[in-house]
């Protein structure tokens, strides 16, 4: 079974047909998806500002990094849980959309980057400041790519 065939069968699941025929289910899920992005936005901005030497406070770095990560995970969960039905609703259309694949690739990359390189940089005190700034700019660029390509999906 090809990926396109999988997309096609997902799109025509009874629950997805129901979702598409409803005038309000899709917009409500899309609103929740945007909430997820905003929650992620707060956590990412605070973490990356920290790496750019604009610290919330010089103390309690580990604790703040931990709390921001919790917030980020909460936002990611909201975004993924709502993103899956949004994708499935028009899976065949998205299969042909370049911005969708850009968004998915950026999202996977930024998740790996955030929970490996960025996480270490946030709590490592002796890291070179230039390296920290590069990590922050990479994180911000990848998240911007996720948001931007996500926005482009609505304009095929």
């Amino acid at each position, binding site marked *: 079974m090809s990926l396109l065939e999988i997309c096609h069968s997902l799109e025509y699941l009874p629950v997805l047909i129901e979702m598409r025929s409803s005038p309000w289910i899709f*917009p409500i899920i899309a609103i929740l998806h945007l909430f997820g992005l905003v929650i992620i*936005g707060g956590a990412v901005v*605070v973490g990356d*500002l920290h790496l750019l030497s604009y610290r919330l406070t010089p103390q309690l770095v580990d604790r703040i990094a931990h709390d921001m990560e919790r917030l980020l995970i909460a936002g990611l969960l909201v975004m993924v849980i709502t993103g899956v039905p949004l994708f499935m609703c028009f899976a065949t259309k998205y299969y042909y959309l370049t911005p969708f694949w850009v968004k998915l690739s950026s999202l996977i990359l930024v998740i790996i980057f955030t929970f490996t390189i960025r996480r270490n940089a946030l709590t490592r005190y002796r890291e070179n400041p230039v390296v920290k700034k590069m990590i922050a700019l990479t994180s911000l660029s990848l998240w911007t790519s996720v948001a*931007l390509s996500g*926005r482009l999906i609505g304009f095929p």
Partner: protein
Amino acid sequence: MYLVVLTVHVLALTIFVGTALIIDLRFLGVFMGYVPTSVVLARLLPWSLRGFFLMMISGLLMFYASPVDKYNNLFFQAKITMLLLAAVNIWLFLKTEYSTITEWDQKTLPPIRVRLVGGAALTLWAAIIAAGRLIPYQQYWFN
């Protein structure tokens, strides 16, 4: 061009509401209670305001692109009304509780009136995002 402005609007909204969310969660006493509220405000409010101004400029440009349609849109009207309510909420906080911040700054759980400000702000930001996202649906639902 409209797409570029819309993208900037969404990014600005993410910075604005994302940082406001952290401030409001601190007001509610449920997040980063170990950081003084004044520190959270001093460090995040400038970024929240930068996001807000960028959001306003991009929002005005989008309004200018189709002013009559936007003016007649119920969700747009609701969004602007809630933005004004949010401004009143912030103004009330600055006029009342902010003047006594030294008394509750270090407390994990701020006074009830500060928590109410935080709760009201969070509700309004969520409603503003929802109304903004629903603007294109006026056509499908009501016209």
